[in-house]
């Protein structure tokens, strides 16, 4: 399977995503430059983390107008998988691929640490290798990760099971929501209505080696591999 990893000016997790796909998953990956007009046969598109366009105006606001985004949106509209991590998630919200927006952390601090997530829905193309309620450890590194949506949107995505990852306290407090950034309902990651677009603030691509603290993130990649290959 071929993964296309978009590089915007200011992306800094594109190499991590490449490492996760090629070295950890053993699949093929290509870098797609933001000015490209085609996805070069990619089955799955990844919008990586970073600070595209210096976060000018708002995080993700300018990147969504990059030429490649027209192709990414068309790919998503065809029902093909697109995943965005961190800045990728912010770009997706700005582009209207996912509802809501990501605001400055409530603490006003950049938070860089491994956090506990609970898998809320294991029946999506990106989470089928996990089990519902499973606790996983994945790092976050962001200053603008406070997921915000209006009340109606929030109740819709909750009701439709589209909140796939939620921040939780710790191993002993699995039921306690805890948000490192002030996200509404401690939301860490959501999927689109059709289920083929995933956006999450944590970095699964940085959690694919036990040596680096956790390999819990590989499940996201294995899930999409099993789904697309099936």
């Amino acid at each position: 399977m071929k993964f296309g990893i978009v590089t915007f000016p200011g992306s800094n997790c594109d190499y991590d995503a490449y490492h996760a796909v090629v070295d950890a998953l053993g699949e093929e990956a290509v870098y797609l430059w933001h000015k490209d007009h085609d996805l070069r046969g990619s089955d799955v598109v990844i919008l990586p983390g970073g600070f595209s366009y210096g976060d000018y105006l708002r995080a993700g606001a300018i990147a969504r107008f990059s030429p490649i985004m027209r192709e990414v949106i068309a790919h998503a509209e065809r029902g093909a998988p697109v995943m965005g991590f961190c800045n990728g998630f912010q770009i997706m919200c700005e582009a209207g691929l996912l509802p809501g927006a990501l605001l400055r952390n409530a603490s006003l601090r950049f938070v860089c640490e491994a956090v506990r997530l609970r898998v809320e829905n294991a029946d999506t193309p990106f989470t089928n290798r996990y089990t519902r309620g499973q606790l996983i450890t994945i790092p976050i590194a962001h200053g603008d990760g406070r997921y915000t949506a209006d009340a109606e949107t929030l109740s819709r995505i909750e009701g439709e099971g589209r909140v796939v990852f939620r921040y939780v306290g710790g191993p002993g407090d699995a039921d306690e929501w805890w948000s490192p950034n002030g996200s509404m309902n401690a939301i860490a990651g959501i999927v689109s209505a059709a289920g083929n677009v995933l956006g999450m603030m944590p970095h699964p691509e940085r959690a694919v080696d036990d040596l680096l603290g956790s390999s819990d993130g590989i499940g996201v990649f294995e899930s999409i591999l099993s789904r697309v290959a099936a």
Partner: protein
Amino acid sequence: MSRFRVAVHIVPRRGLLDPQGKAVTDALRTLGFPAVRDVHVGRHVVVEMDAADSTAAERSTRDMCQKLLANPIIEDFEIASVSTL
């Protein structure tokens, strides 16, 4: 066609948690301004553009706000001024 300078105020939508505004509110009170009730920190954008008249310049800038300069999910905007250059 004339040239105009259109100034826009963009602020966090009312009702949304605004930690930056709250931090500034607290700082101002500590500094000796106890009368301060609320502060919202936003952006001030100045657009210089060509347009047939000031109404057209304002209309066009409003459109820019809806499409890019502001995010309607989280921000409100208002045209602060339109002046001829």
